[in-house]
């Protein structure tokens, strides 16, 4: 279980998170919603080790990992994607999965469903955005994460692409993996049957919800 306890975060004196408490069990699907600037991405960055909270703790299966670096969060099975896709423009996509040929062969079905097979040898600027978003998810999924955080994956996607993206997540994310999606658009949340939690005034709605 991943527990975020009393998280507080300030940016230039402004309180962004003001005591967020949530316990996330493996296998749950959570949709984190909220208006612009409510701290959704900040919460995601803290939960994945890319930011350190001023107060509070992150507990993974009883161990306090609050001050671990982000790479260690990833090794502990807490992975993420980014709001703006991050790829090296000089490398073909196959090389940006950072995995072996054997692993690619083993996950061929997932790559086919993502529509990636035709683009394995393409540069990122030659590939449609919805596929790049799936490649980011695949990159995280190849190492079988226990917790996967997606930061606004629908940004820049048309409704049909979003539907396909939702199908892809449902099909390829293990039942044991906890999925947290930071998202504005409700279609995707519904598609993956997520428990929707809203972040408002630096706190989760209805006090602090336990998922």
């Amino acid at each position, binding site marked *: 279980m991943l527990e975020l306890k009393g998280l507080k975060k300030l940016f230039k004196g402004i309180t962004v998170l003001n005591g967020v408490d949530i316990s996330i069990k493996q296998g749950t699907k959570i949709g984190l919603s909220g208006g612009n600037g409510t701290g959704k991405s900040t919460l995601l960055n803290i939960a*994945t080790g890319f930011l350190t909270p001023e107060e509070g703790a992150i507990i993974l299966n009883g161990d306090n990992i609050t001050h671990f670096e982000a*790479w260690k969060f*990833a090794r502990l099975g807490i992975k*993420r994607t980014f709001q703006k896709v991050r790829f090296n423009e*000089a490398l073909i996509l196959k090389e940006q999965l*950072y995995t072996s040929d054997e692993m690619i062969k083993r996950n061929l079905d997932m790559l086919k469903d993502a529509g990636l097979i035709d683009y394995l*040898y393409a540069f990122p600027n030659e590939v449609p955005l919805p596929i790049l978003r799936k490649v980011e998810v695949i990159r*995280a999924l190849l*190492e079988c994460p226990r917790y996967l955080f997606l930061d606004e994956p629908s940004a820049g996607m048309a409704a049909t692409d979003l539907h396909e993206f939702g199908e892809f997540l449902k099909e390829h994310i293990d039942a044991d993996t906890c999925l947290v999606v930071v998202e504005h658009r409700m279609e995707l949340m519904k598609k993956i049957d997520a428990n929707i939690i809203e972040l408002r005034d630096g706190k989760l709605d209805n006090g602090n919800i336990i998922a």
Partner: protein
Amino acid sequence: MSLYFVTILTNMTLISFIAISAYLILIVGEVSFGQQAFFGIGAYITATSTTLLGLDIVIALFFSFMVSASFALVLSVLTVRLSGLYFAVASLSFAELLRLSLYKIEYTVETSSGTIGPNGPEGFQNIRWIFENNISPENFLVIALSSLLAFIIFLIFMESSKLFKNARLVGKDQIVAQSIGIRPFFYRVGFITLAGGVAGFGGGLFALFNTYIEPSMFGIMLGVHGLAYSIIGGLGYPLGPLIGVFIDIGLLESVRFLSEYRMILFGGLVAAILIIFPEGIISPRLVSRIKRKLVKKTNA
């Protein structure tokens, strides 16, 4: 082959070690203006090992590699929180600190062939290994080239390894690297240390070839040239720095008649090449394109 060409080729080979060393640091996303210091340390270590200690050349060069790598390790750990411009300045400061320290090292011994040992500003004289072992300039070129080739083959072999791919990711985007569990610190420290070792090894060969070294030989311009060769050649493949060396020294030597204007030409050449090839001649994108063509050809 004339002695002139042998000497030019040997100099090109020796400076290639600094270029490769700069290349290794560029791979992990940093710019070092300090590789000349590790080259200098390597030179002093080999000079000391072969003259004062009478050690075999293989052991001397190994010591040069290890001691220079150790100093580079110190630099990498001290600058762990620095990057970009700040790392560049720190590397230059560290290099100057080491180079200026060489002015203070004095330990000389009188022998039948003259004074040996580091002698402060007067440098280290009578490094007579090539004379004592009857190594002709051609033979020395073979030794230097074989050593360089060994490093290049090692790097080409490693290029397809997970280690190097991860290092390139660290150099390009540390956030993505961390998101998939790659620890940037490990790659940064490892590559800066290896780069120091490579420069030190080259410096060791330089001391043997030159037979005389002094601290002023290892100033910033040496490091800037090494860095420029890497950038001109491109960061896509280990042959990049060598192409940079070949283009620059080859061209500079062919226009020797321009005397002092040659350095103006050098600056212009670097600018022109980088306008035409912004990521160097063998850029990572070019290497990816070639790989893609080869895969398509194999599949066809």
